[in-house]
């Protein structure tokens, strides 16, 4: 399985077969608590890195999910609206949010690796 990369907005990105799968990190889902609602972007939408394109809400709070890289949304996780708890139970597997056809895969390489993300999280707490 391809290596996960991480954004400062607490998203993970996995590049496989030229398509990037995106979700929120285990750290992010722990901080949010029980996820009860997810709003996903439309397939076909062109996004820029940093665009707010999805929403995740727990009992307690709402949070934006950003596009970690530029590209085109090619698929969204159809299981998520009916079972938002997948974000808590399997944040980097069944709880993925959307897939992006990257405009430039170099943008993914520039994201943090697991160690750098852990240091980033530690520096914030």
């Amino acid at each position, binding site marked *: 399985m391809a290596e996960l990369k991480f954004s400062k907005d607490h998203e993970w990105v996995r590049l496989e077969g030229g398509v990037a799968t995106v979700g929120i990190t285990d750290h992010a889902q722990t901080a949010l608590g*029980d996820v009860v609602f997810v709003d996903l972007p439309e397939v076909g939408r062109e996004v820029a890195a940093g665009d707010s394109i999805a929403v995740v809400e727990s009992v307690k709070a709402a949070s934006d999910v950003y596009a970690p890289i530029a590209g085109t949304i090619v698929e969204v996780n159809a299981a998520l609206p009916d079972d938002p708890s997948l974000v808590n139970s399997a944040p980097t597997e069944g709880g993925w949010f959307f897939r992006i056809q990257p405009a430039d895969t170099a943008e993914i390489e520039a994201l943090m690796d697991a160690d750098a993300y852990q240091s980033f999280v530690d520096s914030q707490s």
Partner: protein
Amino acid sequence: MAESLLETPLASLHRELGGKMVPFAGYAMPVQYPAGILAEHLATRAGATLFDVSHMGQAELVGEGAAAALERLTPADVQILKPGRQKYGLLTNEAGGIVDDFMVANLGGDRLFLVVNASRKHVDLPAIEAVLPAGVRLNRLDGRALLAFQGPQAVALLAPLAPAVAALGFMGVAETEIAGIPVLVSRSGYTGEDGVEISVPAEQAEALARTLLALPGVAPAGLGARDSLRLEAGLCLYGNDIDETTSPVEASLVWTIGKRRRMAWDFPGAERVRQELDNGPARLRVGLLPEGRQPARAHTAIAAGGETVGEITSGTFGPSLGGPCAMGYVARPHAADGTALSLMVRGRELPARVAPTPFIPHRYAR
């Protein structure tokens, strides 16, 4: 976390239980434990959970004429309250706004027991002291903790340790012992479920909490679950749903005004209350059920026909309801149950309808 936050007598127990501490009304309080808000909420509706609400203000009003003195600040009929009984009331100001909501119990022998909000105790208690006649004294009970033990199993679990508790009806109060610890128990709460609130000396609070947590199936619950439980039960949160700008009539809390008080009109803000009862208030607090699963949070604008007609004051996803629920104020023409409205959530119109509260029926003791 700021150094200046106060701690309750259960602070070290919260840390031991893995409580996620957040600032609330000047205190470090557990918003949730490792089980999470959803599980803690559902455990309360299914069995019994323990909440630390020691941040709330406790006080005793002692002396002949204590009830009459308190009535100078509230439209509640306090004098009618029998020994061993508690009621919910509002403190109001001359403009008819709500200064706080509170519980008052008659302990007998010219002693009243008061519980007020943490965020308002610094306002309420000096205001009460300022109207006291000679011979009536306010004792702040800063040396006491307050535990809420809530859920359909709470009283049955407590009965072997404290037989007097099972004999209390809803809003009954007794000074008794639980496992040998002296307590003041009221059969009440803020979840819509049966249960008790227990006032206990601070130095014995942890021992009592450990005793209750050791009962079969009991789990700790935090402020997050307390908020979703009270919202499903249609109960107001001071500072969100009621404040100094809202009147008892607008807040749909006219039932807290005593009949005798509505004859005498002798409470602060009586003029506004009377005018609003005669002519109808401009706006009313209502329950709202959004369509779909997305919660609408506090401060969300409420629209009808493209015009803003109100604002949400509390909103969440109701774990027992299995969907979002909210309350807020709407202009009176839009306040009838079933009225279709739009909630302006993140730039989009979310359809919703006005709905009766509680969203989850109360299951109080008889």
